[in-house]
């Protein structure tokens, strides 16, 4: 997926929205900026399928040599699928952040929206501001 086509939470998760019949499914992952900043990932867990989440709820942990970071849900919905292979591919997680390194898929709740997320340009600006 092209990073320019995605939307982002300030907490560095990306979101790709797709329609699946009547359901709106978002795929969630961590941005290239986040993965580059974390470095040396050694462990991650995955959310449970069926987990109901609201924006900013804890989804899972990613752990580097140095520290543990939390991944938050960018949306309101239910986790319907997780990338089981990802925890065993942490050494290459940064190679394809917007493709093979997706974390989970969340079915949006009725009425839930992506308002409050940033487009790519606004997200990059937020990252640059954070760095100063």
């Amino acid at each position, binding site marked *: 997926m092209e990073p320019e086509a995605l939307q982002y939470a300030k907490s560095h998760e990306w979101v790709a929205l797709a329609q699946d019949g009547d359901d709106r499914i978002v795929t969630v992952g961590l941005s290239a900026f986040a993965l580059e900043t974390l470095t040396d990932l050694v462990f991650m867990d995955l959310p449970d399928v069926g987990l109901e989440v609201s924006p900013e709820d804890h989804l899972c942990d990613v752990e580097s*040599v140095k520290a543990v970071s939390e991944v938050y849900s960018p949306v309101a919905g239910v986790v319907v699928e997780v990338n089981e292979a990802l925890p065993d591919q942490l050494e290459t997680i940064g190679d394809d952040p917007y493709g093979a390194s997706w974390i989970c898929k969340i079915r949006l709740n009725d009425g839930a929206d992506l308002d409050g997320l940033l487009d790519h340009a606004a997200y990059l600006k937020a990252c640059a501001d954070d760095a100063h």
Partner: protein
Amino acid sequence: MPDATLLKQTPLHAWHAAHGGRLVDFAGWSMPVQYGSIVNEHHAARRSCGVFDISHMGRLRVSGPGAAAYLDGLVTRRVDNMKPGQIRYGLVCREDGGVLDDVLVYQGADFGVGEGGVSHSDSHSTFGVVCNAGNRDKMVAWMTKRLPSGVMFEDFTLSTAMMAVQGPEAMTIAAALCDIDVMPLGYYRGQAAHVMGAPAYVSRTGYTGEDGLEIVCRADATQAIWAALVEAAEAVGGGAVGLAARDTLRLEAGMPLYGHELSETIRPDDAGLGFSINLKDRDFVGRDALVALNDPAKPRQVRVGLELEGRRAAREGSRVLLDGDVVGTVTSGSFSPTFQHPLAMAFVDVAASSLETMLQVDVRGTSLPARVVSLPFYTRPKG
């Protein structure tokens, strides 16, 4: 976050910033926590050569006819019988036995790094002291308050720099820049030298578990020496190493870090540092309190090494349990790049401290099995 402009900078700050160093506030200093991958930097020191900017460490000089007696009255190890060039690890305590800092005392070392070092006749009355960055203000206040007349105390931290060169290739790389032969230097021995023509003090010391040299030089000589060390290290697959890997290296080597395994409230004996206290026929600040603190009737927790399976690390503050009961707390923990599984140091009840005891560590609600193992985790291969 404190205002970054208030942080102290080492003479290598611009180099770190220009070479991808991620600069963080460490004890009031803007220091590189990593340049790229922590794991790669860790392996550099274990496998070839890592070069560390440790200029944040405090460098103090005590000199004058009463210097030996003065220091001997402050440090838990004997200082007044040290030979020139000898270096000793010791603790500095309060009257109540609380540990203010752990230090290295260098007999005959001139951290002012004047031209030609200390003359032999002066060397018996000159000492260098290296203290932790975060304890420097406290130590300067403590030491100056007790300074007798005839003893001079100077803090050279800001006018000098300190670099560590560590790893199997470190001595060869460092030796190539020195005007004296440093290869015969014994472990915990130091000597005045010129490094790339600049007056310096070099010592066979380190905080990684590897062989290597530490170099103290004047601030204005630092950049050239650093650049040459990093270039030589990179040529053998190593390079500059940040503070994050310094921490994983010292954890594997089982070395205590003040604020974690040492503090004003941890008894040195419980930290396994009984060797650093010499009570025989001598007196120093805190001596009687240390003796009283070691009352065997008092409950105690002792430092142990813990080895965890899997990849999820126990971190500082994690609770340690035995059959569901809390028996201690993790003081340092990380994934170990060398062993590829998590390691930790913890203080646990004596009853839970025997080797091979199976404990559990509560990591954010998940109970992970942890085995008590002997320290250090890592010992470098000899020869």
